[in-house]
């Protein structure tokens, strides 16, 4: 007792709290987490994603077969001795490709999504906050990128530079930021006219402070959802580019596996289907989490 209430001030405040019975207000993050946990699909997605992360980040240390090595007869079906997932047209181990190739796929997805969010958020927030000619100019630029056929544009970028994990991530980021920009702009437009922003301005806060510390945290929930979905989109994009032959052949990735084996789909379904399933599961997991986040941060859905 005496230790806990070493100062008389603390003792007093504790007594005060106990006296007036403050209504318990949950921390918003904790509330969101509780809402998220109530969403079975989202939790399933989270577990799935953790599983995939374990598979791609931890399992490679235990399953050390080089995914480029020729380990067995080409096009051996799954279940063949030593190669549970079969081999591709060169005799490369599909399981090794799955285990070692996930890292590049997730890295491209993650990096592209981060790039998309950075560009999108910068453009959208400035346009939404300042309005006027800044908004006009930035939105025209956004529209320019919006009307470009995204896959084609990404192909041009990758073809201009040589295909590598970095260029593919860059290309995907550059073509997919517009949705984030639009969303960020609308959020900033909405929030900047709210009372607490006006108050912040009236007490002389700088623009930078208002953008970073007042509006951005409040605009974050929908943007987080958008960013999560962007990861899934970017992974699909990577697979699409790889399918068209624009993958780095020196880095194993799920997209590369699909792209390089696509001609063998008719004869060796496993070469394309197995990496396809893993891409599907990853994108599904990310989407479920994104949905869960959306529900969890949307106050209107709270009573559901």
């Amino acid at each position, binding site marked *: 007792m005496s230790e806990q209430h070493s100062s008389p001030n603390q003792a007093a405040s504790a007594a005060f709290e106990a006296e007036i019975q403050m209504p318990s207000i949950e921390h918003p993050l904790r509330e969101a987490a509780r809402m998220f946990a109530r969403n079975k699909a989202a939790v399933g997605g989270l577990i799935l994603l953790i599983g995939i992360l374990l598979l791609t980040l931890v399992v490679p240390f235990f399953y050390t077969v*080089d995914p*480029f*090595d*020729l380990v067995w*007869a*080409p096009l051996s079906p799954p279940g063949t001795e030593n190669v549970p997932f079969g081999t591709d*047209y*060169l*005799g*490369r181990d599909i399981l090794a490709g799955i285990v070692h190739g996930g890292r590049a796929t997730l890295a491209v997805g993650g990096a592209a999504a981060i790039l998309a969010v950075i560009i999108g958020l910068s453009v959208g927030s400035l346009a939404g906050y300042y309005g006027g000619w800044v908004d006009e100019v930035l939105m025209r630029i956004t529209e320019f990128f919006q009307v470009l056929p995204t896959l084609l544009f990404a192909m041009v970028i*990758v*073809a201009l530079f*040589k*295909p590598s994990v970095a260029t593919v991530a860059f290309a995907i980021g550059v073509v997919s930021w517009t949705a984030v920009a639009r969303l960020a702009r609308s959020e900033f437009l909405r929030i900047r006219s709210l009372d607490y922003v006006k108050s912040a301005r009236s007490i002389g806060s700088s623009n930078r402070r208002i953008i970073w510390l007042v509006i951005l945290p409040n605009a974050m929930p929908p943007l987080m959802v958008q960013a999560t979905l962007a990861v899934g989109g970017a992974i699909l994009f990577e697979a699409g580019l790889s399918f068209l*032959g*624009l993958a*780095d*052949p*020196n880095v194993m990735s799920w997209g590369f596996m699909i792209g*390089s084996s696509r*001609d*063998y789909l*008719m*004869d060796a379904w496993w070469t394309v289907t197995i990496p396809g399933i893993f891409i599907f599961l990853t994108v599904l997991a990310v989407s479920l989490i994104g949905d869960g986040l959306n529900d969890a941060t949307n106050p209107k859905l709270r009573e559901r």
Partner: protein
Amino acid sequence: MQKSRILFSGTKLVAAVALAGAVAGTAHAADPKRGGTLTIVDTANPRHFNAAVQSGVATMVPGAQLFATLLRLDGQFKTHPYLATDWKIADDGLSVTLNLRKGAKFHDGHDITSADVAFSLKANRDNHPFKAMFAPLQEVETPTPNQVVLRLKQPHPALMLALTAPLSAIIPKHVYGDGQNIKKHPRNTKDVVGSGPFRLAAFKRREHIILERNDNYFMEGPYLDKIVMQNFGQVASQIIAMEQGKADMMHWSSSSRTLARLKKSKNLTVTSDHYVAIGPNNWIAFNLKQKQLSDVRVRQAIAYAVDRNFVTKALHGGFSKPSTGPIVPGTPYYTDAVELYDVDLAKANKILDDAGYGKGGDGMRFTLKVDYLPAAAIDENQKAIAEYLKPQLKKIGINVVVRVSPDFPTWSNYVRNWDFDMTMDVPFNWGDPVIGVHRTYLSNNIKKGVIWSNTQNYANSEVDAILAKAGVELDLDKRKGHYAKFQKILARDLPVYPVNVIAYHTVFNNKAVSGVPDTVWGTAHPLDRIYKLK
């Protein structure tokens, strides 16, 4: 001349008999029948049809139907009369006299004269990408309308082959001799006038080429009324078209997946008994200006590490053949009496150890880039083998980085400007070493900026001397001797390491088609003997 006229009427008689048999309904399967349409799976995407000034299979196949040539080849590289009925090579090899078929006419009714032949051969010499074909041709004399004399700067053993379809074409002077740039002549794609077995009825790029029977053809045949070269789109659709009988024939196919699937169909015959003169030699080219690759021991070590059997059997399902040198098997000058580099990883490692290329901490000696020609149709020959080199050469401590070119110009820019270490490539033999082989190895053909020149920077004065001799030697056996020596040296020096020969296949519906040409040129040959069974 009298003789050829008799032959001519004779063939007409045969055709008449065949026709009568068909009418009577008693035609034996072996007797060619008149009529019907042959549908061929094709890309239908030639630059144009004028085979006198344009190379490439897309032009050559329809070109050989539209334009007759002086001679034609059979399946054994033997020359036969076509527009020329007989010919004589002078003893010194410096002139060739050919007599032209009398009464032969172009599609528009004009007689084919020696002036047309002279005009065509000169156009070919001055414009065709295969410069070596007619480079020694100095003058074409026309003593009479039915005789030409070709005057040569030097004996030219490849000449007779160059006079056959699809390497040359006799084009009408009255159409193409109007002073316009012949390579861009409007009549190369429209109102094409030749003298071949078929005339152009319709051409819609990437959709179809429709050829109709030339009723005034100067030889026997053709039996078909029509040839439709149809673009069926994706490979899957092409396969279905063949399986369902919508198409009668697929030609120039080398995809092992496609061929393996079509082979399962009872009605379809899959054959590669022809095309031997084309000779697509799929190889790894080394840049001899690159530090490690300038060392012949490194090239030999790579040769010992690459398994041709794996490529042809496992990777290509047996639908391609191992290549052992610059000249492809099945052609007259080929020899396999050379070092064959049967796969031997221990030996390869030892060569590199002995040469002083020690392994680093990661087990690697050095890094080499490999490029490949980006073309979906030959991915299993180019892309797949480039990818195969990565794990395979890792076994001998060479770290291979595959460099992707998104399109042909990108790849071509790397290679022709010598900005490469190793590249997959597939130059064609084109029937005679003078045309398709010499270019890669002659030291005077080291030309920066020119694709398919001696981009390897290989210079060996002994090879230069042998090729110079072989290029003017008319005696078959002596010439064979020169090329045997040449192939031996090349197998030792390895400026390129030949992996396999792409085997082009023809697939045809054996219930619907007969008389598929078994020439060394495949279907880039007049299709005047092919006929429909029903």
